[in-house]
């Protein structure tokens, strides 16, 4: 498959705009030249389609886009990216858009009869080493590092390396799994691209002015994030037993291990507790330091563009010795049913829902008070956030490695030996 054919189908690929050669307009022209109105029109449609696209076949690109010429597609993609970059709450919009574009690319890749060169060509332009597997099964072979790059962002067990056919540094996967991996490759590439895009302020306000209507539709399509999708009133009384126990230990001035502190902060953030109230929950802890705690809680809450860290799964909680399922007071016991509850969030979601169903007339206890009663005097800040890397899901690289990676403000270059991780 030639580069041109590949780019025509996947106009977001790196180097695609090189194919425009002398036809490449300035960004200003792309924004305002009437000649590019058809391209801008295409881009608007495409952005709307991508944001509306849930993962799956229905997320395929609109038909006008399919009918467009390769140059138009490339230009339209460039303009889409600019639209996304200036959209209100652009991080959220960008994430949805990247997923949408990746998903539609995956439908293209997965269409019947897509030639293997198209897959390997796309992979190679994303700097991934992928070749058709031996035999005529349609399987793909991913070079080990390329596989790990992709699978590490995909949390389901079926992507785990140990489940794959790994032989001499190559991972053989069935076509369907291969498409999912490449979809992740596209998504990751696009989100890096969008994050790197810098438009000068004048251009930005130009786009905002011209595209006001579209941008308001975009906002509506990527609605404001409600943490964890938990609406309504907060119900600390329905928290899972592990979280109740951690809060209670903190209230009683007992030391809670790092994993527990992290779990509580990430959990409270996901169910919609404000940072201030989360910080309050730690006031009872020994050596509480407000500034540090606030910093760390904020890091957890703001991780991944405001999504926040997801609390550890129940199995991880158990492995860390902070699962408290024996204290589960739900009837029937939820913790005993790993089919329903594999993360503390499942527990809370299930209980709040059934509570709403069973007693829509009764008044739930009030609750902005997710924060703990302020007992105890003072204390070590929760070691949440920094150093979260080994166990917590989605740990950001910047906070993933403990002291060795913690910025050291001390130019005297002498730090306590215990603070280093060495091997």
């Amino acid at each position, binding site marked *: 498959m030639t580069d041109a054919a590949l780019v025509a189908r996947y106009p977001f690929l790196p180097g695609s705009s090189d194919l425009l050669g002398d036809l490449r307009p300035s960004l200003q022209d792309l924004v305002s030249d009437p000649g590019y109105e058809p391209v801008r029109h295409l881009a608007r449609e495409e952005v709307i389609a991508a944001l509306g696209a849930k993962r799956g076949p229905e997320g395929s690109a609109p038909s006008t886009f399919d009918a467009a010429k390769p140059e138009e597609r490339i230009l339209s993609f460039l303009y889409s990216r600019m639209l996304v970059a200036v959209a209100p709450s652009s991080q959220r919009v960008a994430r949805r858009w990247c997923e949408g574009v990746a998903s539609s690319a995956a439908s293209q890749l997965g269409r019947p009869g897509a030639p293997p060169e198209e897959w390997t060509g796309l992979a190679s332009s994303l700097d991934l*080493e992928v070749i058709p597997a031996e035999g005529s099964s349609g399987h793909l072979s991913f*070079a*080990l*590092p*390329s*596989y*790990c*790059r992709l*699978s*590490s*962002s995909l949390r389901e*067990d*079926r992507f*785990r*390396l*140990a*489940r*794959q*056919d*790994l*032989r*001499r*540094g*190559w991972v*053989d996967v069935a076509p369907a799994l291969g498409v999912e991996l490449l979809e992740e490759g596209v998504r990751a590439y696009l989100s890096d691209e969008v994050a790197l895009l810098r438009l000068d302020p004048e251009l930005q306000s130009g786009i905002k002015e011209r595209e006001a209507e579209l941008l308001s539709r975009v906002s509506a399509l990527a609605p404001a994030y409600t943490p964890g999708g938990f609406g309504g009133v907060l119900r600390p009384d329905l928290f899972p037993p592990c979280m109740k126990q951690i809060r209670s230990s903190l209230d009683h001035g007992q030391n809670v291990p790092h994993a527990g502190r992290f779990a509580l902060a990430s959990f409270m953030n996901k169910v919609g507790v404000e940072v201030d109230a989360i910080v309050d929950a730690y006031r009872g802890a020994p050596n509480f330091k407000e500034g540090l705690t606030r910093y760390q809680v904020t890091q957890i809450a703001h991780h991944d563009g405001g999504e926040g860290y997801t609390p550890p*799964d*129940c*199995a*991880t909680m*158990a*492995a860390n010795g902070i699962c408290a399922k024996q204290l589960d007071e739900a009837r029937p016991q939820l913790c005993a*049913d*790993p*089919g329903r509850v*594999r993360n503390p969030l499942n527990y809370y979601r299930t209980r709040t829902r059934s509570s709403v169903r069973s007693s829509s007339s009764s008044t739930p206890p009030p609750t902005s008070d997710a924060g703990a009663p302020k007992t105890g005097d003072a204390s070590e800040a929760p070691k949440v956030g920094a150093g979260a*890397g*080994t166990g917590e899901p989605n*740990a950001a*690289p*910047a906070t*993933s*490695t*403990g002291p*060795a*990676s*913690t*910025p*050291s*403000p*001390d*130019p005297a*270059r*002498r*730090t*306590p*030996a215990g603070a*280093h*991780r*060495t*091997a």
Partner: protein
Amino acid sequence: MGKTVALSGPSLELARASFLEYYRSHPPPLPSRFLRREFAYAPFSGTGMRRHLAMPSAEVFHRSLQEEVPRHLYYSSAYYEDPAHPIMVSKRWVGADLIFDLDADHLEDAGGLDYPGQLELVKRKFRVLVEDYLLRDFGLDATDVQLAFSGGRGYHAHVHKESFLGLSSAGRRELVDYLGGGGVDLSSYLYPSESLEKKAPGRRAAAKAAMEATSPEAAPVRSKARMPKSTMNELPRFPPPDAPGWKGRFSRSFFELLTGWEKMSVAEATQDILARAKRRGIETMRPGDAFTVARALLEEGKAAKVREYLVLDVGSKGKTGHRGVPISFIELILAEGAVLLQGETDAPVTTDIHRLIRLPGSLHGGTGFRVRPLEIDELREFSPMRDALLPDPTHGRTVEVRLGVAVDYPLGEQRVKGAEGEVLSLPLPHALFLILRGEGALDGPRVP
């Protein structure tokens, strides 16, 4: 780093002088891409560590070693734009070697062993790591991997292959998890068509939860959770032993078990099956089941049949004429397989992309052993107690060491043995080993 015993007086002087002499006569080579690496020294006195050092040349490096005489010497597995910058983010990470660290501290079965015994066990496991995983499964060439004895209680493998250097911490986690079979479902190997996922999502999730738990007790739970209710309708099947990845590994481990039984009589094999079941906590294994299986395998030729057709057909005739393999035996196979699923490498070392690691060629400040670079072929014969000992600059002159505890080590060509309070007359490297471990102190004036 392990604990380092504080030294003082003549012991400190001797240790420091010996390290100085070593770094003068055996300057360690700089690692690959040294201009991009951070170096760090832990000194003999004090508790600090000098970090964020950059080495522009071998000459500067060797001079600084002789000036500072570090007790421990580290360098970063990572490459940075500006390795000397004191703020980590400002160093600007560009990549990192992929490191695997296997240490006696992390081996479950190392607990009851003495130091030489631990070293031997950890070496055996390290060879498996290198040969079965890094070379075979990961497809690395011997030239991509640098091995080293850590000088303490373990071994390091440094992978320098270009395509691995840019992997994020999460990508490295995937590799480390592979070593412990993270996410593997052994029973799906035996019953590929058994779709418990659809039949019992709760069970499936229980199995998954057990899988994700890192505690070893989880293993039997996992096997039971995925157990089919009956084996009547489907005989368990093994993947071909040369199948890729964990599938092949699982079969090979069962065939090894089988080979063991084939050397036994039916009675002995029955006893062995029962003993293993007991060890793995499989209480449902009845003597009758074990005997049925042993007899089928050894007398009815079923062992050969498994090898040839990969089908485990060792059941007894049931009332309806079907044959069922005792569930307890399936449980045993899975439990034995689950033993393989214990990743024993120190995972944080691999996933930490800013790690400081001992420089091969330097000295370990807790033993005086050399951090010995090793070729793969050398590994089999290598014995740290004999081969990692500091070269003796005095050629056999001895020093007097008063023992703080009773010791008994095979060290170099001799046996170092003595009771608490005893004074031993020892060659310098031997004396240093005891002194640095805190098991003895220099007695009397220092020998120059």
